């Protein structure tokens, strides 16, 4: 290798450039985790508000739908920095959550006449796990 001039300042500068690139990249993709957690939190809040707090279904559904649409619109605007298959998996996870809770867990709890509200909280938490799984890179491999 030809012995070109490469000073300590050049090395320092290059290290700083690398650190900046790494930090910028991490910051740019951080939104996806926030998006996933927000979606999971709102999904859980929706199910708890209906089955534990006794809120009317459509009165609970309207704000949930509004928030979901807003965060998805923001996610779609930033889709270039989303992980590969991240948004697709999130869509599948939300559909799975809805089906799991509405078609399986909620009817099952009613069938067994579960009286404690904690059963519905537990069911809500179990049903949002597909959404939370999207935080992990292994869910996309």
């Amino acid at each position: 290798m030809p012995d070109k001039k490469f000073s300590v300042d050049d090395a320092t500068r290059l290290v700083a450039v690398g650190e900046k690139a790494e930090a910028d990249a991490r910051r740019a993709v951080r939104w996806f985790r926030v998006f996933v957690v927000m979606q999971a939190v709102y999904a859980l809040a929706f199910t708890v508000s209906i089955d534990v707090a006794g809120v009317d279904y459509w009165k609970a559904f309207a704000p949930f739908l509004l928030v979901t649409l807003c965060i998805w619109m923001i996610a779609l605007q930033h889709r270039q920095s989303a992980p590969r298959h991240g948004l697709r998996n999130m869509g599948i996870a939300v559909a799975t959550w809805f089906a799991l809770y509405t078609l399986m867990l909620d009817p099952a709890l009613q069938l067994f006449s579960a009286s404690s509200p904690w059963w519905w909280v537990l069911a809500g938490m179990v049903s949002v796990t597909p959404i939370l799984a999207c935080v992990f890179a292994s869910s996309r491999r």
Partner: protein
Amino acid sequence: MSHPRKDIDTLIHSPVRFSLLAALRNLEDVDFRFLADLLEVSDSTLSQALTVLSEADLVSVRKEAVGRRTRTWVRITKVGREAFEQHLATLQAIVEAGTQTSRGEEKPDDTPAPA
């Protein structure tokens, strides 16, 4: 012991390629467009850098058809991650060597003045 500059990896020494690997280091598959915007380089520059790095198996490039468009995904390989970390350690060793040298030069001369 030889100077650390002799361990510099010329393949990833270029600022663009070095920044590219630094950005990919802790991420999963990354979109080509996102990378170009992040690194503030043109598509052709990024494409050239990716070609060089993928030929050396430091990154993997995957094209995916999305409707009528093609999306390009980039991921750092295990070899690439190790090469980057090795190169980063070399640069840090150079900085450290330079810092020690300058500390040695700044050390005050405590030899007694002649009578």
